[in-house]
């Protein structure tokens, strides 16, 4: 399942961060890494970007970027 498919107020576990180059590494460096729990706090009023909570802080990603992240264990 993709992170962009997760609904608001759901938690999931990151399985794989896809994409390439600088953007992928930047996402990883912000702590969005394999095995981390990630919580979908809310989508922006225009449904893009999305606000997430990971490692105890809030971060936003564009939906297109979230679609590169595979997750499982959705709760």
């Amino acid at each position, binding site marked *: 399942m993709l992170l962009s498919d997760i609904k608001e107020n759901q938690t999931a576990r990151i399985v794989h961060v896809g994409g390439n180059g600088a953007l992928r590494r*930047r996402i990883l*460096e*912000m702590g*969005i890494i394999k095995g981390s729990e990630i919580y979908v706090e809310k989508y*922006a009023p225009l449904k893009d970007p999305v*606000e997430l909570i990971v490692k*105890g802080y809030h971060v*936003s*990603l*564009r939906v297109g970027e979230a679609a590169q992240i595979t997750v499982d264990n959705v709760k």
Partner: protein
Amino acid sequence: MNQKRFSIALAGNPNSGKTTIFNNMTGTRQKVGNWPGVTVEKKEGNIKKFGYDLKIIDLPGTYSLTPFTIEEIIARDFVLEERPDVVIDIIDASNLERSLYLATQFREIDCKVLFALNMADVARSRGLKIDDKKLSELLDLPVVFTVGNKNQGIDTLLEKAIELAESSYEIPKKRRVKYSKDIENSISSLKSFLENWTEGSIPYNPRWTAIKLLEDDKIVKKRVLNEAGKNSREILQQAQIHRDFLMDRFDDDPEIVMTDERYGFIAGIIKEVLTTSAKQRIDISRNIDLVLTNRFVGFPIFLFFIWAMFQLTFSLGAYPMEWIDIGVNFVSKSLVHVLPNNLFKDFLLNGVIAGVGSVVIFLPNILILFFCISIFEDTGYMSRAAFLMDKIMHLIGLHGKSFIPMLMGFGCNVPAIMASRTLESEKDRTLTILITPFMSCSAKLPVYIVLAGAFFGARAGSVIFGIYMVGIILSIVTGRLFRSTLLRGADAPFVMELPPYRAPMIKSLLIHMWDRSKIFLKKMGGIILIGSVVVWILSAFPQNISYSLDYNSKISETKASYNAEIETAHESGKKLLAKQRDDAVSELIKAKKTEKAEKSFMGSIGKVLAPVFAPIGIDWRGSIALLTGFVAKEIVVSTMGVLYAADGTEDSAALKNALLSSGMTPLGALAMMVFVLLYMPCLATVAAIRRETGSFKWMIFSVVYSTSLAWIVAFCIYQGGTILAV
């Protein structure tokens, strides 16, 4: 007494409270400039403390030292090349895990580093307990708790920093970042390869260089290639062998695996030093966000804030602007009487004072605007604004934060372009700066009012609205065009932290506001002063114009003949005659002004340019008005007043009549309005573009692009309209 000098660099994540600590350390003794060659702000301050001279350097806030963004490159290069005596990494204690990513990268570089666990109070209130002794022991460096906004722990921090600077440095052996076995094998193999290398020199510490080569770090690779002798390529080949091996082993790029493992290492530290008590508190910040980024009220609230900022900047700013205007007028009025009539007086009044006045007048706007922007930034609302607007701005290929500068452009382009500093990506910043001038600024409005009022009567409002829309549409078109050509490249990733809301500190707001204004006054003052002097020279010379009429004697003649009449006239007729006399005299003075303008260099240029403007329906008088508009757009109207010989330049009704009888057509007026909307921005804006893009190239480009676009669009309107009308 010869005091010891140490340089201390402050590093840390954005929103870690780094700037607050810097402000507390240095107070007002700060120097703000730019890092060489880039537009990233560099702040430093010199202080005396505990008998030492300390130079504090505020490095750009970054999340990592991987050289992707300009800020990261600056921060890393500074530590590697300038070798500050101590690096203080400021860590948001309430966000320890992510902050440690940058911290471990500093630990990997061979520099003296210490940690400030900032916002210790916030962390405590969240039920987070950090074992500082354990952390200090694990990473083999000093750790100090601080509360930046309450000025707690800052002295201890400086004391420890000095202690560290005085200590003899040894490469820490304990618990540096450890990678998995395969990677460690490659690192040590590459490291000994580097240590045994005899040619040239290896620019950095071998282990660190080995790690960076495995990560395929472009900058390190280049340095190694340039400095490690003529066979340096062999080193890179060796590194590539290891990279290939690791790629095969992990089925992913080594730099990705190493990022993962760094976080693994951090997870290990977190487990040992951080205990979270079950105390569940109310998250105020999240509650605020329930409203401020709410699906329904988020936008209206955002628009309200922007409206409020706009109002404050331009309405509240109007009062001090008026005072400044009065002050400048007072100075020039006093000088009128004091100085003898000569060229120098004209130069001083119309060149220098008018020029300086036109700069200083923007100061209230700048001060208020940056006060508001600082509030947005310091509270954390700026990221929410970007969060809300990103979807819309992304359509033009821009970041959500570009919205604010673009909107400010409707007021005045100068602060708007300065506001683009809030954008992190240089490409986004440049693009925003290039399209902001198409947001029709308030100084252009008088031009529209006069022209649309004269030629479109009741429909003037709709026409002016249309002009504004043309500006917006062309900014979108330009944005998309440049994004796919000149400023191509992946959009800046929107991996943006939404920091907890914080109460802003007045001290920080004021420092921020004052810094901006100082830059504005210093750098732009110079360019604008020179520009105004040039324009003055062009319009004041040549001095010895041979007038078609001897105006001065004609004026005296007229005065004399009226005065004679008044002498003999009845008491009742005297007033009327006096008025007729004044009218006749001012008519002559105006005619003289018109001829002077026509025969000045500016007039000659206008006449030379006339063929260029003819196809867009603007005559030589219009061309001169447009040229003088380069100083400030408001001047277009007053120049038109002089040239179209209207009665009294301030009276727009008279100017309208003069325009109507000048042979200008509604179509020509429309073309002129569009031209005014789009053509090169005013001098102050051009200076701002030069300053904020950091390059003459972009400044020239912006001027040429906007003027060409203006001509093309005006041409299409005028010629197209002419054809349609036929």
